[in-house]
């Protein structure tokens, strides 16, 4: 077990206060960054190797570098705090318990790309996170960490706190921008990419809460120190969300590249039922391909999980023991995406509901063998054929659950009923 870096302040009783955050060395990194040129700040983040923690793992410094330096337009910085991927609850912890950590990252990033306005888009279902952030922004403004002439220098930044209203799709970056603009959350066709034409048609950078929470570490300790944590091309500390059939579910901090089995059996305390066996693990939130128990002895970093045929995604680790009906678990996941599909692209809008109907038929014992192949077929016709990745997010579980647990789907068809009724 490593020393917490992202969760260093969170354990303290008044962790949300500026005084507590400063007591843990908070805002020292920002002071360093503001003494550097914006281009040097971007270079430092590039050299740290930090990759985005929202799911895609894209290099953060490179992303900041995409925002044009010479533009007559306003530039915007957005923090994506619309955490909604099933199995994920790390960003809420940071916002509720250590809001200054992400705020410091937000100010640093805004300075780097030359934004004078930043938006934090908080999920509507997180009122406590919203309150903690509102208070942190107010405190930061009073202490000259926000507003005009930050820390006595010549950089100005205004932060707008924005509340979502219940739409998973708004976690997609361009849907989120549409939402801030006061519209339905329909993802935009890319290009143009947000770095060139984002919020209000202006150059925009957008990062996840946990990504921004990593930024202060880079500037208080230097890129070399940061890059020494984790593994090659997968640097830094990471928050893992443990849920499902575990004795001790919760948020765990370990470097990128920790063993999945260490998360499950040590941090998570192992399976919660006596004598139960591990059946399956979803390593990165409900949208990523599922792993069978025998495939789950892997390292948890972007490249290792991809090599194992899944994705690190949001690091939402959902653990299922052998009392779980995989067909019913898939039905649950599909219902989620069918509910959250924005309706813009036909393959996703129609396909999600078809998949729900087919899998429900199998779970109810009324499916045929042809239905099992039909799942794969319909999912294949959604994958890669939509404007945004929600289509892939429904296709990946659909295809992987069927391919990896085909015998269980066949058993439902053969018996004409669910062998594990009432489970999951």
């Amino acid at each position, binding site marked *: 077990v490593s020393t917490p870096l992202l969760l260093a302040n969170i354990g303290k009783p008044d962790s949300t206060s500026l005084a507590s955050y400063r007591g843990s060395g908070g805002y020292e990194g920002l002071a360093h960054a503001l003494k550097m040129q914006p281009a040097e700040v971007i270079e430092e983040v590039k050299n740290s190797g930090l990759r985005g923690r929202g799911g895609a793992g894209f290099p953060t410094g490179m992303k900041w570098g995409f925002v044009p330096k010479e533009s007559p337009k*306003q530039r915007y910085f957005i923090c994506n705090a619309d*955490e*909604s*991927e*099933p*199995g*994920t*609850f790390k960003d*809420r912890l940071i916002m509720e318990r250590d809001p200054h950590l992400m705020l410091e990252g937000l100010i640093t990033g805004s300075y780097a790309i030359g934004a004078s*306005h930043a938006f934090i888009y908080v*999920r*509507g*279902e*997180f*009122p*406590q996170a919203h309150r903690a952030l509102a208070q942190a922004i107010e405190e930061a403004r009073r202490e000259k960490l926000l507003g005009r002439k930050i820390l006595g220098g010549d950089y100005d930044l205004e932060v*707008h706190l*924005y*509340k*979502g*209203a*219940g*739409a*998973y799709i708004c976690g997609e970056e361009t849907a989120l921008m549409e*939402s*801030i*603009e*006061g*519209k*339905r*959350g329909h993802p935009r066709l890319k290009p143009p990419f947000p770095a060139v034409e984002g919020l*209000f048609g202006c150059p925009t950078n957008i990062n996840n809460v946990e990504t921004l929470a990593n930024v202060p570490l880079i500037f208080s300790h230097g890129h070399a120190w940061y890059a020494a944590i984790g593994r090659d091309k997968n640097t830094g500390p990471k928050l893992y*969300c*443990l*849920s*499902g*059939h575990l004795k001790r*579910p*919760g*948020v765990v901090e370990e470097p990128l590249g920790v063993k999945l089995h260490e998360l499950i059996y040590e941090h998570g305390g192992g399976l*919660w*039922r*006596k004598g139960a066996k591990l059946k399956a693990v*979803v390593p990165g939130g*409900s949208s990523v391909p599922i792993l069978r128990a025998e495939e789950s002895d892997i390292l948890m970093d972007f490249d290792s999980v991809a090599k194992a045929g899944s994705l690190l995604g949001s690091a*939402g680790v*959902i653990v*299922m023991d052998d009392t*779980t009906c995989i067909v019913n*678990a898939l039905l*649950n*996941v599909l219902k*989620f995406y069918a*509910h*959250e599909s*924005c309706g813009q692209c036909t393959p996703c809008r129609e396909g999600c509901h078809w998949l729900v109907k087919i899998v429900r038929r199998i779970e109810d014992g009324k499916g045929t063998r042809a239905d099992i192949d039909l799942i794969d077929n319909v999912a294949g016709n959604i994958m890669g054929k939509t404007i945004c990745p929600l289509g892939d997010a429904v296709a990946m579980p659909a295809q992987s659950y069927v391919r990896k647990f085909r015998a269980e789907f066949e058993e439902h068809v053969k018996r004409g009923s669910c062998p594990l009724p009432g489970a*999951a």
Partner: protein
Amino acid sequence: MPSPKVEREIDALVKRLPRPQAAMLPALHLIQDEIGHVPVPERVWLAGKLGVSPAAVEAVLSFYTLFRRQPEGKYVLYVCSTLPCALKGCEQVFGHLRKLLGVDAGGTTADGRFTLKRAECLGACDEAPVVQVNGEFHNRVMDWDPDSGRASFATLERLLEDLR
């Protein structure tokens, strides 16, 4: 119509944000927090404020699940129903609440006190099964012994008692 206080807050948002329409979601939240839902006259009023058509307000209102177009109960109970909560017995929680309240998903009790709803993942999977009441989390609302399968709803019943 919204109170002068809410109108002032909406005017301030319109002034502060780069475009008037960007005040749409915050304004709808303000109106709903005051009235409990967003009635038709307020929708038309807001469209005028933001310089958009009433259809543009309607489009937003019907897209986001947290916005309410009709009045609902004083307490809206959202039972999280997505996979991590399902693995920890959310269907039993939902079934028990349905029995206690005598309403199905989307229904409001006759006294107007409770509305029962299902929610998609609420992002508190380590505390499963969870219920949200008017935006506040209530964690592990079912005490469940995984070995014997015995479940107790004492926490859930206490919560309901407190709200009655």
